[in-house]
């Protein structure tokens, strides 16, 4: 499909307001031989209950259906692992279903959970995601991930997904990055930022105090991407409780969690990036029809859209999401974002797909300092901080859990509870981690609206989840 009908572009509508009530996250790590997956899921659900001063048993009484995000059955050699987790959470005989959309699995799980509440089918839904990528050697893990590519046309080519993804990075690097050292350095600064923020996050396992030189001198994985440009491989679980208004009000009464309005929209694009046909750039509310007319003159080689440089699925999911909740300019309307930084370069590509910057100018979001908690250029709060959690590069990428982890992280800012949760020394000790002596409070002051982007490899599936304080909505009747 290279053109879209007006019916296909209809703004999605929820039949009633939907709320995020609470969320939870387990410890995340590269490997956890001492834990079964159910232990991680219970850890996340217990935390979600604790944040609204309930016991897990009390919270479970509200849950009507469950949506489980788990991408890779073959990693654990356990088909239908969702049924195992559902049983261990003691939620039988409630209906449950598994969701899998690659790296976007967490976001897609929330997408389904929100629709279940919006439709009236359920008043309270559990969205739980997990992954464990520690139970096979790395080369077999790479093969298993590569099975998510087209098995006849791509997987035999090296059995390594990074190679299929990195051709996109190479094209962006040459066309929009112009192979400039300054652009390479900007990529490195993203890694520095995300590893740095992760140091203050007790859930994270990639916290590091590094410099741009460390990134630029790290081993090449697929040029220009180096080891420190790449996301982590993780074990972990995350969950969210999604409710209608009455249930949300009841569950959060006299707690520090204010129910947050939630919208999720999704997009997709063919698994084989090479099969993406030319099309006009779909415009976001903050873009104009003539904005990209001379793009190919400014950036020779950018004639094809989305080609290998943009993620159409991200653009379409943003278009749906912005129209659903009234966002006209993400940089103005949002207070923070959590983006799917699988690689530093795909992080920059996504800034453009989301309209944070126009196509070709994503690097400016980093270079201006807008993406930082505190703008290093001005010392003032960043205009739109991104990945305060550390993201996939610094915090974790336990595939089925990642999109839910991002929403948990955004919500802690909107609840004004970031410091309480992330600074909790008991939590650091429980996870066997040392709270840094220079730990910093990264709460985004006054945050009222945020967004999380969940993304599957090569942009095959993308979701945008928007959270808003119900007293700070942009559009009435959204």
């Amino acid at each position, binding site marked *: 499909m290279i053109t879209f009908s007006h019916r296909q572009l209809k703004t999605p509508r929820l039949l009633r307001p939907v709320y995020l009530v609470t969320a939870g996250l387990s410890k995340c790590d590269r490997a956890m031989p001492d834990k079964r997956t159910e232990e991680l899921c219970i850890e996340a659900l217990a935390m979600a209950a604790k944040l609204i001063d309930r016991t897990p048993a009390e919270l479970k009484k509200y849950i009507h259906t469950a949506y489980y995000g788990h991408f890779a059955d073959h990693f654990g050699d356990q088909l239908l692992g969702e049924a195992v987790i559902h049983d261990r959470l003691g939620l039988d005989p409630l209906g449950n279903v598994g969701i899998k959309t690659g790296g976007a699995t967490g976001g897609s799980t929330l997408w389904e959970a929100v629709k279940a509440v919006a439709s009236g089918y359920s008043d309270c839904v559990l969205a739980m995601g997990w992954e464990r990528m520690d139970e096979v050697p790395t080369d077999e893990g790479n093969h298993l991930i590569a099975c998510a590519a087209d098995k006849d046309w791509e997987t035999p080519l090296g059995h390594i997904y*990074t190679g299929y993804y990195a051709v996109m990075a190479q094209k962006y690097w040459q066309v929009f990055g112009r192979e400039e050292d300054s652009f390479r350095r900007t990529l490195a600064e993203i890694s520095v930022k995300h590893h740095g923020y992760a140091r203050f996050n007790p859930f994270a396992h990639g916290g590091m105090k590094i410099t741009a030189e460390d990134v630029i001198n790290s081993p090449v*994985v697929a040029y220009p991407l180096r080891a420190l440009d790449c996301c982590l491989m993780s074990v972990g679980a995350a969950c969210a409780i999604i409710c209608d208004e009455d249930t949300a009000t009841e569950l959060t009464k006299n707690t520090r969690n204010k129910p947050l309005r939630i919208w999720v929209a999704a997009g997709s694009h063919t698994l084989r990036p090479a099969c*993406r046909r030319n099309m006009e750039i779909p415009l976001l509310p903050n873009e104009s029809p003539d904005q990209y007319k001379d793009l190919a003159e400014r950036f020779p080689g950018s004639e094809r859209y989305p080609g290998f440089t943009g993620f159409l699925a991200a653009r379409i999911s943003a278009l749906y999401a912005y129209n659903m909740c009234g966002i006209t300019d993400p940089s103005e309307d949002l207070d923070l974002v959590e983006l799917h930084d699988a690689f530093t370069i795909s992080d920059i590509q996504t800034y453009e797909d989301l309209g944070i910057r126009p196509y070709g100018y994503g690097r400016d979001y980093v270079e201006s300092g807008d993406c930082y908690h505190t703008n290093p250029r001005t010392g003032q709060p960043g205009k739109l901080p991104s990945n305060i959690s550390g993201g996939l590069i610094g915090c974790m990428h336990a595939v089925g859990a990642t999109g839910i982890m991002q929403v948990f992280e955004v919500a802690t800012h909107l609840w004004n509870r970031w410091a309480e949760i992330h600074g909790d020394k008991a939590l650091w000790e429980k996870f066997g981690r040392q709270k840094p002596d220079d730990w910093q409070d990264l709460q985004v002051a006054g945050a009222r609206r945020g967004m999380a982007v969940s993304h599957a490899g090569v942009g095959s599936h993308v979701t945008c989840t928007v959270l808003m304080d119900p007293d700070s909505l942009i559009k009435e009747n959204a």
Partner: protein
Amino acid sequence: MSKFAQVTVKNNRYIFSGDFHHICPNQPIRDLDNNGRLTGITNPRDMTYVHSYGGEAVFFENLSRGKIHGSRCDNPECEFTGTVYLPFRIHCPDCLAKNTVIDLTDICKTSARIHTFMVCERSGAFNTLAKPMKFINIEFDGVATILMSYLSVGEPRIGMRVKPIFKTTDPTYTILDLSWVPEDTQKNQLPPGFSFG
């Protein structure tokens, strides 16, 4: 004595012969930091899958004969009739009519150029390509899509003219039977088993 798994088709049914899996014993996993206590178990799995190429079989068969086949939508009622696809698409993604299989070998030999590429130092399990692997994505005149493959000679760069080579000796009947070389490459530079078709 073990024999490789083999499959043929008779009366549109698979006939299996040989060994499709091998049974190995589970092994305990012990924690060396805690007096060797049991933490888990290995689950050996060695299996052979069977897979149908379906309507794409003609593409994979013809690589070993030095031919590259694509497909074209010839449905006059399709909004995008005449669109040519490589990689091969059995059906038009717009109207879903069955596409016409067409020989694109000459177009590939005369118009192929690198759209983007990646040199990859690492591979996953089961990889059979030599490292570093030089993945290339190739664009062709008159073809709507781009083909992912690999370069067997020289160093890739965007815009570079390339031409196809085929594993006509001992073919694998996979996408690996097709590779590419710079347009001035000579026959004696080709990897073993490959020819210009």
